[in-house]
């Protein structure tokens, strides 16, 4: 695309500065809404645009906003900038390079639902980008774009940045709310959904950074304008974080449904190593892996579902044919074992046991029975967890076994376990584990 809608920093240098952003229609939608639109009209245009949540689940944003009860006060907006899915780095880009568009989108959401306070929850590691974001917010206050009685109306809005401190689960919306309330980030039982009982038990909208960055141009230009991109069910543009074995990793902004996985790979320069690409994870470690034989699929929610995968957070990790899927699955399980919040047994214990079986394989002591055991452990987790994280953890096992069973068989037959590289990797993880024992804790209780 020639002109970007989200990655506007690629077209307009220094758009991160308020002065530059303002010269390029910055805050025009905001002014238009507060001075000339009823909150419901903002909801309607976002609903009509068909914009779907970009945090993973793809729920229509305008529909979510319309669930907020009109007669309960206060209400809140919380922006999900926890971005911790391995392979995802799009929100990071937006808050660093185009922060005002995120702020403006947040403001429009708040106005639409009648909230006077919004919190932008950034993962703790985003300390420096969060300071920059805070500076952008300060500039917006100084310019009279945030604060009391905006544009002479009786509408007031405060936006605050809140930093997490390292926990993938805080990207899950209810865990995020717990964390924002100063507690450990463990998911809440749903229902009630946040629209009814969210932050401080008040009606709350939670949207991803990218979702909200789409809102200002939609409000300014209308829903028909936005729908010129994408498909009927997946309208608009989407950011694709592309990494792994590609020549040009980075964020790509593309209309949904226009290109195939193969074309995305080519846009990113193709294989970095010269070896053929074997597979891709389309939404980080959480997603069903896609073998190269399915790279013809188009990039939208429906087409991805049709090949048994997801669009999700859109973090594309390409892997060439040197990657052993047993190793890759272990890496992913290690992630989930580390990030399990510990609230429910199938996930907490299941990821622990799954990792120990993979460790056995990598150490060279595994047998084909252990491969079967993985399937068994997996079954004890699937459908039994309190929140989707446990489910995510299983997809690395389920789908590497489904599409790359031969890798597992070869791993045993050809005695690939026990290599120096694997032993070193295991030794490092175990050393860290020992150092952290008594330090790493789950639910405040010290565990393995």
């Amino acid at each position, binding site marked *: 695309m020639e002109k970007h809608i989200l990655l506007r920093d690629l077209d307009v240098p220094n758009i991160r500065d308020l002065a530059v952003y303002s010269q390029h229609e910055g805050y025009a939608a905001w002014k238009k809404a507060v001075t000339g639109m009823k909150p419901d009209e903002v909801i309607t245009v976002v609903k009509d645009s068909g914009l779907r949540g970009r945090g993973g689940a793809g729920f229509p944003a305008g529909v979510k906003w319309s669930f907020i009860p009109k007669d309960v006060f206060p209400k809140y907006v919380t922006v999900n900038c926890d971005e911790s899915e391995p392979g995802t780095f799009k929100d*990071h880009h937006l808050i660093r390079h185009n922060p005002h568009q995120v702020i403006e989108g947040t403001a429009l959401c708040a106005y639409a639902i009648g909230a006077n306070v919004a919190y932008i929850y950034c993962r703790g590691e985003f300390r420096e980008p969060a300071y920059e974001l805070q500076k952008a917010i300060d500039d917006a206050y100084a310019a009279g774009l945030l604060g009391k009685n905006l544009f002479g109306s009786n509408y007031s809005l405060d936006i605050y940045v*809140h930093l997490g401190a390292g926990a993938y689960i805080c990207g899950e919306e209810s865990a995020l709310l717990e964390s924002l309330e100063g507690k450990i*980030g463990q998911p809440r039982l749903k229902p009630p959904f946040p629209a009814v009982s969210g932050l401080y038990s008040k009606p709350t909208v939670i949207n991803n950074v990218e979702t909200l960055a789409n809102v200002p141009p939609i409000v300014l230009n209308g829903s028909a304008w936005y729908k010129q991109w994408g498909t009927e069910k997946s309208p608009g543009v989407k950011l694709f974080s592309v990494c792994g074995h590609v020549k040009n990793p980075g964020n790509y902004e593309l209309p949904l449904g226009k290109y195939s996985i193969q074309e995305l790979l080519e846009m990113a320069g193709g294989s970095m190593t010269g070896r053929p690409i074997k597979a891709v994870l389309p939404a980080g470690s959480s997603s069903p892996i896609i073998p190269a034989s399915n790279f013809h699929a188009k990039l939208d929610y429906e087409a991805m579902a049709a090949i048994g995968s997801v669009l999700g957070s859109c973090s594309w990790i390409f892997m060439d044919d040197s990657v052993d899927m047993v190793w890759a699955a272990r890496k992913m399980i290690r992630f989930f074992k580390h990030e399990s919040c510990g609230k429910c047994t199938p996930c907490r214990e299941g990821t622990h046991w799954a990792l120990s079986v993979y460790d056995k394989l990598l150490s060279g002591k595994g047998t084909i029975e252990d491969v079967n055991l993985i399937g068994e452990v997996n079954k004890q987790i699937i459908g039994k967890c309190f929140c989707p994280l446990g489910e995510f953890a299983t997809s690395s096992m389920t789908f590497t076994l489904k599409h790359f069973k031969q890798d597992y068989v070869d791993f045993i037959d050809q005695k690939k376990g026990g290599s120096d590289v694997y032993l070193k990797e295991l030794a490092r993880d175990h050393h860290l584990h020992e150092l952290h024992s008594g330090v790493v804790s789950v639910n405040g209780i010290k565990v393995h």
Partner: protein
Amino acid sequence: MLKDKYKDRIAAIFAKYPPERKRSAVMPLLDIAQEEYGYCTEEAMREVAELCGIDPTEVKSVVGFYTMYYEKKVGKYVIDVCDDLPCVLRGADKFVNYCEQKLGIKAGETTPDGKITLNVVMCLAACDRAPMCQVNTAYHYDLTPDKFDKLVIELKKG
């Protein structure tokens, strides 16, 4: 005492949340505590608990849950190298080996002079620029042994 030394910063933090929701400030206050003491000391956790009007064990559970709070002394600089799947595909495993060799310590350990702690961590959302690491708050991208050598020289000075 944090509450005297950082009076204004603490007031600004509490102003972000409803007055009856002081507990929301627990993490920002722990950030200050860690800045001040280097890690979350027992004393700091008690102070934070008092400021938020909650039990010290509640603060301690927060400290235990989130990976960025330290319960033990760490180096003046903490180098967190990502060794998650996307980074390793782009050479982060070999890079971690290099870091260990260069610093003469294993991941998880601190140099004898107390300057540098080396850690490996999960995805830091900068996979396109791997190998990468975070040193305290700052991200460093597209790392090579050469760049790491220069980084270590800088850190040892400071």
